[in-house]
């Protein structure tokens, strides 16, 4: 009787070991996984043909916006307001091509959050305009600056252009609004210039030298940054949150470019296109493609359900763009009139999260380095 028990336990124990050992090899090990893909060529392509040209173009567009803002604040008129609006839009669209590269100096500066946290905090902005004390470099002030704050100042103060211009002309408010607007645009330029200078200075060589296949290598880091951006900023921020995917009811007031009512869709499409171009290693200035996540997957001959993974990912980008193109320009209006178009767009964007974050990362042996925060 006793013997049976002992034998039973030995058998059981071996079963346990067998059953449990498979789950033991997970975890954040930073082992080198080596394949023969030319990671160095990919990093060089990213830096020289995509990232630096994109920042260069962005910086130029921001400089135009700063100029337009200074013209408008010197001579507040409807024509100058429209001119500033157009410059703001160009810079905002341009920003969609650099927003995903939150690495190096951009990461250090909290670049994306300082340029594009929305909804913007109108109450605090109005307080700051009237008492003229604010420090944009404080982390708690990310929601009173950047493109969304400019959006409010040039599109959201009143219903007509004439009324908006009046804020910048009337004696009691002119100083506050003009000063705040210039401070906003100048800060965007300052940040953008700092990041560009760093890439053109020492950071490029540090970045391209980080060829190791580990959590601290440039490939793992930038791919993680790209996925974080795609998932949180693009998928959730631009579509999911306003469409109510994460809440009980839709939240139309949480769309990007809320006050402009005209460019939300354009910003979204620019972001999807920029993400796809990065995946394909497409040059920022021409149609040519260099080493990329796509060529890396093809090199590894990654197949899912009988198809090339890179083809599936590109198809999914294309479908997402087609869906997004069906949206109206004013995404808040889209949420309130026919939210199903928003949720359908979200669903297509979400399908690529699976392909990129699960299948691609597995193929490339990259660990996800970000998790959902506890929310506390």
């Amino acid at each position, binding site marked *: *009787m006793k013997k*049976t*028990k002992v034998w*039973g336990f030995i058998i*059981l*124990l071996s*079963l*346990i070991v067998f*059953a*449990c050992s498979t*789950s*033991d090899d*997970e*975890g*954040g*090990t930073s082992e080198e996984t080596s394949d023969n893909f030319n990671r160095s060529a990919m990093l060089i392509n990213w830096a020289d043909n995509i990232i630096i040209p994109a920042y260069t173009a962005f910086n130029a567009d921001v400089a135009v916006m700063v100029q337009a803002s200074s013209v408008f604040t010197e001579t507040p008129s409807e024509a100058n307001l429209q001119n500033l609006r157009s410059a703001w839009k160009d810079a905002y669209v341009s920003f969609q091509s650099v927003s995903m590269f939150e690495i190096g100096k951009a*990461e250090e500066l*909290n670049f994306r*959050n300082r340029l594009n*946290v929305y909804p913007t905090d109108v109450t605090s902005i109005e307080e700051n305009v009237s008492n003229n004390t604010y*420090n944009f*470099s*404080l*982390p*708690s002030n*990310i929601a009173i600056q950047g493109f969304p704050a400019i959006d409010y100042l040039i599109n959201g103060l009143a219903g007509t252009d004439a009324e908006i211009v009046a804020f910048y002309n009337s004696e009691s408010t002119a100083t506050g609004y003009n000063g705040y607007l210039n401070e906003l645009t100048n800060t965007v330029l300052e940040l953008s210039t700092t990041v560009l200078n760093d890439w053109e200075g020492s950071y490029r060589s540090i970045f391209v030298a980080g060829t190791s296949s580990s*959590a*601290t290598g440039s490939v793992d*880091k930038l791919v993680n940054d790209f996925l974080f951006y795609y998932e949180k900023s693009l998928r959730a921020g631009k579509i999911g949150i306003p469409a109510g995917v994460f809440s009980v009811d839709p939240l139309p007031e949480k769309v990007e470019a809320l006050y402009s009512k005209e460019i939300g869709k354009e910003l979204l499409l620019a972001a999807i296109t920029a993400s796809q171009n990065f995946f394909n290693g497409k040059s920022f200035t021409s149609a040519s493609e260099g080493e990329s996540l796509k060529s890396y997957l093809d090199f590894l001959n990654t197949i899912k359900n009988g198809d090339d993974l890179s083809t599936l990912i590109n198809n999914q980008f294309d479908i997402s763009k087609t869906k997004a193109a069906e949206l109206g320009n004013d995404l808040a209006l889209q949420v309130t009139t026919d939210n199903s178009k928003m949720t359908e767009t979200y669903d297509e964007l979400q399908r690529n999260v699976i392909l990129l974050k699960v299948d691609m990362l597995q193929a490339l042996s990259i660990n*996800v*380095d970000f*998790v959902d*925060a*506890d929310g*506390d």
Partner: protein
Amino acid sequence: MKKLLLLPLCATMLFVSCNKDDDNDSGDNGSAIATPTLYTFERDGVSTVNFGGQTTRILMAGETTDAFKAFETATEASIKAMFAHVEGAVDFSEDDLNSSDKSIESKVAASSDFFAANTTEAAIIKGEFAGYIEGQINEVFPNENVLAAAGVAGQIADGTSTRYVNAQGLEYNQMFAKSLLGALMVDQILNNYLSTAVLDAESNRVNNDNDVVEEGKSYTSMEHKWDEAYGYIYGTSENPENPNLTIGEDDKFLNEYTGRVNDDTDFSTIAADIFEAFKLGRAAIVAKNYDVRDEQAEIIRENISKVIAVRGIYYLQQAKLKIENGEVTGSFHALSEAYGFIYSLRFTRKPGTNDAYFSKEEVDGLLSQLTGDGENGLWDLEADTIESISETIAAEFDFTVAQAASVE
């Protein structure tokens, strides 16, 4: 015949839980008590389950933690008053809490097994909580709108969140909340209400054997003690009878982190193991089988201790990644949480012993390593130090640093 049935039964249990320590082969006793599906117990058609005092304290702990960020309204006196609430004082947003005679502080480091004869250490621990409050008000509040730097309290950016740290880079609100998780919830469950000294106090056994209920109540004293343990993890649950439906979502303390650890596939049965043991132990009290009761208490002790250790290492490893990536300030939030979880190790309980997995001295040693790489604490912390602290903790348990660090 019964014994033959026992082996396959054990085998399925082991298969389900993959936990070598779950082998509660309690002979013929174990099979006599069925584990109920829900935490529902009645006497003469009336529920005998009650843990209102625990629900109250979890809610008080939540509001007190939130007050650390109330820059406009909180004072040292107001937060200390919340911590040591007196019946009738208007310390909280809810009338139910204000009218309560319960307080958090009276139950901090106050378990029968660990602190009844250790009031000196209990006083030191209470003093450390007071220190968190004083630090927040006197060091962090004045620097609310200052950018933190090495040796300077103030703000740091953490994604879209703003964190407020002391000169060492530590967040007092996180230290307070996560240390409280150990000093209040874990200590009360593992070392007080599941303790035989408490469950069997006075005439509890005789009364429970004879169904003698407390005056004016539906429950025996022993039943109630077990429920009070239960309340410190499930007291604010959406479904207190079936709390794993929402485990992780019902508070910011032990419930939340049991859920978070359970999300990791390496520990995917831990929430179920804890709940099953709570149910079976309570059913054993009803069945007057105190051996089975005490076996369940040991299972709970082991698994709740594990929640603290896993989560502590998880945060340490998250921070280590950040530091290796050169994001020094990005590591501070995780490290502040880790600080509290390490602090909480002192309140864990090694099954079968009267000891914590780590003594106060050992915990203090780990914490001084965490803040001791340079004069500015977390600003100077090195990845190697984090790794060594992680390994020291994991060495006392049956899991690896890698298992605790993973999110899948």
